[in-house]
């Protein structure tokens, strides 16, 4: 149950893009085409699934206060948590290098289409953010850490997939010239984030949550209307 709860929570409620804005740079830069978005999304799931459990082990057995106790009682008073940024980023950079080599070997097409963005995964905030949130939310076990990594990766994947699909469609609509490209993408992401907020009531339940959900649903309906007008515009243009 714990696992299921964490899984859905990280995908929908604490979605990396919509709730915490992690990995926005590559989210905006690589979301012009669905096919490249899928490639990058898959890479993020993979890298998060590896680095979060690894960093959990680092945190648990080296960095936390008293974590070095397994070396002997005289080490029990050390607190190395100030080193966590540098340790986490080193793990991540190494793992990304590894993924890059593997992808280049097994899927040259994907390697070519992702171009310069694969090395940029190392500086993708989503990856480091995953590890830092894992640390600050005090994830309890290695299994949960793996679960957290994979499920937040899936959340990120869903977000970039959705925005890439919308951007492919919106190319046919007449957006005001200054808003074209970046501007409209920001605003759509904002609207999608409002939509995702309606998942907030999913795990709480109870009377208190119902009132909150109602207001969120209204917003969602508005957003859907907007999406529908966009879709209608597209349909008209195509005809």
């Amino acid at each position, binding site marked *: 149950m714990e696992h299921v709860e964490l899984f859905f929570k990280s995908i929908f409620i604490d979605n990396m893009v919509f*709730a915490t*804005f992690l990995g*926005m740079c590559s989210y905006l830069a690589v979301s012009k085409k669905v096919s490249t978005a899928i490639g990058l999304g898959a890479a993020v799931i993979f890298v998060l699934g590896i680095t979060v459990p690894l960093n959990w082990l680092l945190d648990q057995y080296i960095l936390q206060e008293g974590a070095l106790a397994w070396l002997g009682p005289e080490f029990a008073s050390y607190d190395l948590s*100030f080193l966590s940024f540098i340790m986490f980023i*080193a793990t991540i950079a190494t793992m990304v290098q590894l993924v890059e080599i593997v992808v280049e070997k097994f899927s040259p097409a994907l390697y070519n289409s992702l171009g310069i963005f694969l090395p940029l995964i190392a*500086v993708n905030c989503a990856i*480091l953010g995953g590890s830092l949130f894992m640390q600050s939310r005090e994830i309890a076990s290695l299994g949960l850490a793996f679960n957290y990594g994979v499920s937040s990766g899936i959340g990120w994947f869903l977000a970039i997939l959705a925005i890439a699909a919308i951007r492919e469609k919106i190319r046919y609509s007449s957006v005001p010239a200054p808003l074209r490209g970046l501007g409209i993408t*920001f605003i759509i992401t904002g609207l999608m984030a409002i939509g995702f907020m309606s998942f907030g009531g999913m795990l709480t339940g109870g009377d208190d949550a119902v009132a909150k959900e109602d207001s969120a649903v209204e917003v969602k309906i508005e957003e859907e209307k907007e999406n529908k007008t966009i879709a209608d515009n597209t349909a008209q243009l195509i005809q």
Partner: protein
Amino acid sequence: MGLLSKKDSKLILDPLADNNPITIQVLGICSALAITAELKASIVMAISVLFVMGVGNVVISMLRNVIPSKIRIIVQLVVVATLVIIVDLVLKAYAYELSKTLSVFVGLIITNCIIMGRFEAFALGNGLWRSFLDGIGNALGYGVILIIVGFFRELLGSGTLLGIPVLGDPIEKTGVYALGYENNGFMLLSPMALIVVGLIIWVQRSRNKALIED
């Protein structure tokens, strides 16, 4: 600007508007948006990035002839991570409450693409002084957007600036609240940061047609 040549002052002024790192280059959005619900946090974040970018660009520029190009990303990450650890410890020591608000987003300065982007694009190929100016210029451009977003979100969301009420008292109905004005709590939620940045881009591109994408 008697101190700076024309070329040098361009390095500082360009990123403030026509080559802004956030609205034009689309870098560094990651850690920027989540903390802009309060003006104070935005300012502290802007100063932290200013420090990390200024010093980081100088360090990388000094090392540029020594770093083997194959491992340059790791070297850059180590430099940024060290600087960010300094910022984090200073914040924890002198502004503990604020460092709680910023939580993991201080750490995420490391992966702020703007910093790695400037290291790659500028500091690796230019001298000390010019790299320093470039770092400062880009950090200022980043800070300006952060402060604009923080200003509007705090003003419209909670009616305060830097924690000081400027629109009157919402409970006692003084100031503009007497006219029936209500705080828009929605501005404090994270989606509005995106929408505010989208609107800034809109305004900027309407003023300068050359920036419009096709």
